[in-house]
């Protein structure tokens, strides 16, 4: 027998980890939320549902209807690429580079669709007076979408797609679409191509009308001999219809030539021999003139319909002339009833001095303003007054790359109208978010009042885009979403409903001295400056000082106390005050190193606090400030408003601060003395640019390969260089880097020393798998202000698997999580059971573990990572109410893993209940940004500017429900649309699985309420509904049109 250094053995049965009973979780469908086939595919990431590792336990959580639905996207679409508007529907459409199309009308009216192709949407055109719209993608495919009513709720459906086919052997440029005209008849689509041809297509069926095509040869033959560009007219740049004669269109070719073409007679009517490279054309409303804009920054006005075949160039101008200018990409001229017309054009700036500006110039009489936008202009349009939208220009709507800006053209000074949706969440980059459910009315009103004072410079006019009718119920409660930003601001959003509406903005920068001059951004255009710039828009990604960045937020909704912690170890405690106040904020410096020697902090310095009193406007005003030393980023924060204490942690340790006495109660250093990396600081500026560039490339590469592993260090990066895609298998040791980083802090009133006396306690969990518990001794109420609070170490747990502790929860005698501070005092929660023994739940990235209290011994656990390799990224406690009865329900843990899966773990049995794929695992920032509400909903960033909202709960679903109708000023076109919905719709959605939409389909309760309303309201016989109501009254009477739908169904 050979002497081998190992043993031959067989695995005892107890150790062979059984995976065999991987039971398929069949979820009982709740009656409220449904996983209809339609809704299911409406997930933006149609991942297959995954099988849970453990069968559902006997608890009733699964009966409460835990199912995942992604309901609505908040914020501004990432990388918009096209804009469309239907004056008759009053709907705005935005296409994006990722192939999404989003429609917006009145606040709450939202639709979303996604093209299969995942290609850039380059054009969006509504068919005039129709419910259809056409999109052009950069793969040259055209798509027809419609808003189809189904059970009283409109949904956006793709109903057709089409690609031009040229003659055999023709180069692809012949059919490459460069311009689109949706003809006012609603029946024709004119497609200009790169080859110079115009194809005519019948819509909505996409039938090519070959005999009506306008070929390049037909046009070229008729071009006057003396036209210099005759040899090559280039592509079709623009197509425009004569506003007074639908049979006439102007075809603008790239080289400059414009041809007025008669569609009926199929011949050229007139040639306009411009010689500059053409950018856009505009046919004035009276049909008498054509404006053309050109690449040299000029525009020309041409008279149409003159008897002479030679047309005069009536007027030519280079508005910002003398020196070479950039192209004017789009020009619009609109008449006013009395007075001069409005002339609007984008671009045309002097190339050398202002070539980098993104401007739209508006000229009205003597007023001339160059609106200077924050990012590249995608497109713009003007909304006109009047019932038929033919009156005076009312508002200019501009889509730029990072925001939507609407300018009131009728109020003096052309102020901006605040947008109720599409708000740029990322006007400064989002660094953290915090959600608070069920805000008391009092706090809500005070916040609204404080917010009202901040929006004085906006136009008083109402939002001009009013299409569709919002059928959604009023939200059941008031929810707040707080976002922290890189520039030190905290924005408060009304997250109760479909629209994420800005309520209030808090800036923490005022407390500190910053390098930036506060008046820097204020300087408006000085007198006589040319061009007359005016800055518009709020997107401002440049932070004055990265140290101001907000990292953690905690708001107590009952007391109105807020704590905000930032990048440079600053922790502010703020109080809501309805009056402005001038006060000094005293800083308390807390040394978290506790005399640990041999370290040198290489990161940024502490922020400089203003020593003089600062005037704070009404709203949240800071009254206490803690500054950590070393000033590392704050990694954990919690506030107990009842005890008036704040706990905070960094990579070096944690502290407890009494904000009533403004005194530090406890400081604990958690730093591992051998951890040098923790000392350098994440924002270390010492590194060479070369090195950091190299590292960031590596990071990009790595993030592409897979989701990040948590323990990235420089040493690991160095190893990556040798073999880029390998991973080291090593048990965690106490000497790993950042083991002392505090990941979570938790206040609990529980049993620490014996099972008869409960006391206040602070719990902290670190990156290295340690849990520290401190018993807090508080003086009696009458001595609260003067007797010191003390904290004593009570327990220390070192998890042997050493995974980062991400959450700590104490469960009461019933096994329910302890209520929030003041919740019981406000009668909003059952007081915790203090009779039976409490339990401690420690959630690490790898395991869920229940310990007994007061003597800590492990009781139960659920292993996650050891079994399927996923790790806990975000965790929250949520209440899952039954959709049937109001009181029934239970608490559970909502867990998001690094694989992007949402899990629900029951309490206190720590059993895996449900597993749903939610976010792509590659979307690391999306996973990191996720916040959970207390009611089983959540938000995560799907782009820097958009939150996706999802719901795991049957009872709490927020999603758009709205109806859009055929406009009333029906031309002949509207007759064609007779049977809008009914049975055909049912076939429609099974076929089009890729379509995204938000409406709930089989929500029976909603359906019944709507029907009841309808039946109550309708006095007229149902058949009268087919005649469309007057447009001005659409909003009041749209309910009428439900009737036929119900009759069908």
């Amino acid at each position, binding site marked *: 027998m050979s*002497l081998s250094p190992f043993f031959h053995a*067989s*695995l005892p049965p107890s*150790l062979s980890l*059984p995976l065999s009973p991987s039971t398929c979780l069949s979820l009982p469908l709740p009656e409220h939320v449904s996983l209809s086939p339609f809704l299911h595919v409406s997930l933006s990431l149609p991942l297959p549902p995954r099988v849970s590792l453990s069968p559902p336990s006997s608890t009733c959580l699964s009966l409460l209807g835990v199912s995942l639905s992604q309901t609505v996207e908040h914020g501004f679409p990432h990388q918009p690429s096209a804009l469309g508007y239907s004056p008759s529907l009053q709907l705005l459409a935005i296409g994006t580079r990722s192939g999404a199309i989003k429609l917006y009308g009145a606040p709450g009216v939202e639709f979303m669709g996604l093209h299969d192709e995942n290609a850039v949407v380059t054009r969006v055109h509504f068919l005039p007076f129709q419910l259809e719209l056409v999109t052009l993608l950069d793969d040259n495919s055209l798509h027809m979408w419609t808003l189809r009513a189904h059970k009283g709720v409109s949904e956006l459906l793709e109903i057709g797609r089409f690609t031009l086919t040229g003659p055999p052997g023709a180069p692809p440029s012949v059919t490459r679409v460069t311009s689109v005209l949706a003809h006012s008849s609603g029946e024709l689509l004119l497609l200009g191509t790169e080859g110079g041809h115009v194809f005519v297509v019948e819509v909505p069926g996409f039938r090519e009308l070959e005999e009506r095509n306008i070929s390049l040869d037909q046009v070229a033959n008729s071009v006057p001999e003396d036209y210099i560009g005759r040899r090559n007219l280039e592509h079709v740049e623009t197509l425009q219809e004569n506003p007074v004669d639908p049979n006439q269109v102007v075809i603008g070719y790239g080289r400059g030539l414009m041809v007025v073409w008669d569609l009926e007679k199929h011949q050229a009517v007139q040639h306009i021999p411009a010689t500059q490279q053409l950018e856009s054309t505009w046919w004035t409303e009276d049909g008498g003139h054509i404006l053309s804009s050109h690449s040299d920054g000029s525009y020309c006005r041409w008279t149409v319909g003159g008897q002479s075949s030679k047309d005069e160039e009536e007027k030519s101008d280079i508005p910002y002339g003398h020196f070479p200018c950039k192209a004017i990409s789009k020009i619009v001229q609109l008449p006013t009833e009395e007075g001069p017309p409005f002339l609007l054009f984008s671009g045309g700036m002097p190339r050398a001095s202002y070539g980098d500006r993104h401007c739209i110039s508006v000229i009205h009489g003597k007023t001339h303003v160059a609106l200077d936008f924050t990012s590249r202009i995608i497109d713009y349009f003007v909304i006109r007054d009047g019932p038929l939208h033919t009156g005076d220009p009312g508002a200019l709507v501009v889509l730029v790359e990072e925001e939507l800006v609407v300018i009131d053209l009728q109020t003096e000074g052309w102020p901006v109208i605040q947008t109720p949706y599409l708000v740029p969440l990322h006007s400064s980059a989002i660094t953290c978010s915090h959600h608070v459910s069920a805000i008391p009315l009092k706090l809500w009103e005070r916040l609204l009042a404080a917010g009202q004072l901040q929006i004085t410079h906006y136009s008083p006019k109402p939002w001009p885009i009013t299409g569709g009718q919002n059928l959604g119920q009023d939200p059941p409660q008031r929810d707040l979403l707080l976002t922290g930003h890189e520039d030190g601001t905290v924005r408060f959003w009304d997250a109760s409903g479909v629209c994420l509406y800005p309520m209030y903005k808090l800036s923490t920068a005022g407390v500190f001295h910053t390098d930036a001059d506060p008046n820097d951004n204020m300087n408006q255009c000085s007198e006589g400056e040319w061009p007359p710039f005016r800055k518009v828009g709020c997107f401002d990604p440049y932070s004055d000082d990265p140290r101001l960045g907000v990292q953690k937020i905690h708001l107590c909704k009952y007391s109105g106390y807020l704590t905000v912690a930032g990048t440079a170890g600053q922790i502010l405690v703020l109080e809501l005050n309805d009056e402005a106040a001038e006060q000094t904020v005293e800083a308390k410096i807390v040394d978290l190193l506790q005399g640990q020697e041999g370290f040198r902090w290489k990161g940024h310095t502490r922020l400089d606090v203003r020593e003089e009193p600062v005037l704070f406007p009404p709203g949240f005003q800071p009254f206490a400030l803690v500054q950590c030393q070393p000033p590392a980023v704050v990694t954990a924060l919690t506030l107990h408003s009842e005890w008036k204490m704040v706990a905070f942690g960094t990579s070096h340790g944690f502290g407890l601060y009494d904000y009533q006495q403004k005194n530090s109660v406890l400081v604990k250093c958690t730093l591992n003395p051998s951890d040098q990396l923790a000392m350098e600081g994440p924002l270390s500026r010492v590194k060479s640019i070369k090195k950091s560039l190299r590292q960031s490339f590596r990071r990009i590469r790595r993030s592409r390969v897979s989701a990040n592993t948590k323990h990235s260090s420089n040493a690991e990066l160095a190893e990556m260089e040798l073999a880029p895609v390998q991973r080291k298998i*090593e048990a965690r040791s106490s000497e790993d880097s950042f083991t002392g980083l505090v990941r979570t802090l938790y206040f609990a009133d529980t049993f620490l020393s014996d099972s008869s006396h409960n006391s206040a306690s602070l719990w902290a969990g670190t990156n290295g798998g340690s849990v520290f518990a401190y018993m807090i001794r508080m003086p009696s109420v009458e001595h609260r202000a003067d007797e010191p609070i003390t904290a004593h170490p009570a327990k220390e747990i070192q998890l042997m698997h050493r995974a980062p502790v991400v959450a700590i929860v104490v469960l009461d005698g019933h096994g329910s999580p302890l209520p929030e501070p003041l919740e019981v005092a406000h009668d909003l929660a059952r007081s915790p059971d203090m009779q039976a023994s409490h339990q401690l739940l420690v959630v690490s990235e790898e395991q869920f573990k229940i310990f007994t209290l007061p003597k800590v011994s492990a009781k139960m656990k659920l292993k996650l990572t050891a079994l399927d390799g996923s790790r806990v990224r975000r965790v929250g406690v949520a209440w899952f109410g039954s959709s049937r009865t109001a009181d029934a329900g239970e608490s559970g843990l909502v867990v998001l893993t690094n694989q992007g899966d949402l899990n629900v773990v029951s309490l206190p049995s720590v059993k895996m209940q449900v597993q749903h794929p939610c976010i792509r695992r590659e979307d690391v920032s999306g996973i990191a940004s996720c916040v959970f509400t207390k009611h089983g909903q959540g938000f995560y960033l799907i782009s820097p500017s958009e939150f996706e909202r999802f719901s795991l709960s049957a009872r709490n679903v927020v999603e758009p429900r709205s109806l859009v109708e055929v406009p009333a000023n029906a031309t002949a076109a509207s007759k064609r649309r007779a049977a809008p919905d009914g049975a055909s719709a049912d076939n429609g959605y099974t076929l089009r699985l890729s379509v995204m939409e938000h409406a709930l389909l089989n929500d029976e309760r909603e359906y019944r309420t709507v029907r009841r309303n309808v039946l109550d309201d309708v006095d007229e016989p149902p058949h009268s509904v087919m005649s469309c109501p007057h447009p001005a009254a659409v909003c009041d009477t749209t309910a009428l049109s439900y009737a036929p739908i119900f009759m069908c169904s």
Partner: protein
Amino acid sequence: PACIENKSLSYGAEFRRFSVDRVKPGKFEEFSRLIMHIHRIANMELMIGYADVHGDLLPINNDDNFCKAVSMAHPLLRIFIQRQEEVDYTSFGTNTLTRRKKAVVTMRNDVNRKRPHIRIGMPQDFRPVSSIIDVDILPESHRRVRLYRHGSDKPLGFYIRDGTSVRVTPHGLEKVPGIFISRMVPGGLAEGTGLLAVNDEVLEVNGIEVSGKSLDQVTDMMIANSHNLIVTVKPVNQRNNVVRSSRISGSSGQSSDSGGSTGYPSLSVGGGGGALSAGAGGVALESDEEADIVIESSVKRPSRRSNASVASAASTASPAPPSPPSRPPSVVSTASFHSQLSLNGSTNHQHHHHHLSYQLHRDLNLQNGPQTSNPALRHSNGSLHKILSSLRTDPRHSLALPRGGVEEDGTVITL
């Protein structure tokens, strides 16, 4: 000075408490003499062991592990003394003191009975580091390797990468993504075992298939299981596969043979009740993994807490707890934090030593003749024992135990 509690188990419940300088523990010889003096043992070959923080019974027989043992005192160090010939060497190693819940299956030593027993040596310096398991149920081309990590002894020491492997499917050969071992850390556990090699394909981690999982998922799974990592690989070198003897002799004998060495029979030393609470007060919840360390401090008496933290190494006066339930309050303090660090420092030392002796043991041949009547092997079984005991003959290690004539037996010595 570290307080050392002595337990001479073999002679009955016999406790001694004395202190040793923690900083300068001295030589093992001196310590051994001290013990013999204190317990008034003479002319007897002793086996001295101690309980480490993980609740393992480990031997003290040379200067190095003596130093290590003293540095582990927390503040008490429990010493076990046995007569050399009564020592059951299989009792050393992982979880030997804490494994109580798990039923002990005493193995029939079929192999030993069938063949003349090979006396290789005493295993006291070693813990098993790896084993091949489940040979009887796996295809011959696969190998299931279990790596044992003891505390922070030695890095697991390998890397994995993405790759492609070729599978035979009903549709012919198919390329599928797979996970492979990409690198071995020199001196690491994985390399030392010789059971894993670069380019071996990883098929399972602790019984869970890795197909369909990303490299990072597999990494996280392995790290999460690192205390008891079982990797099933398809070795790139298929020539060294285990040839199943069970095909001839039937699998029952084989599995009982191997089963024994997977888990160690628990230490059945008498009167071990007090020993359970030794070490750092680790709570043994499950035997298959390391328990969390819980330190509870008595908040009621803050004054005592501060005393303790200063005198944590010198509190020799307090009496030993009679039974585990009434454990004395352990101490959380910065002092104890530091002492743990010094422990880590000495770990490296120990680790080196292990490694060295390990190499040595690999080079050994069967130099021992058959031996039939070694009492130490009465309860041992299988290859574990043989391998571990092989080292007993190495003079460098046997030096650790002073040999003297052992004549007396079973004497109870009281102070």
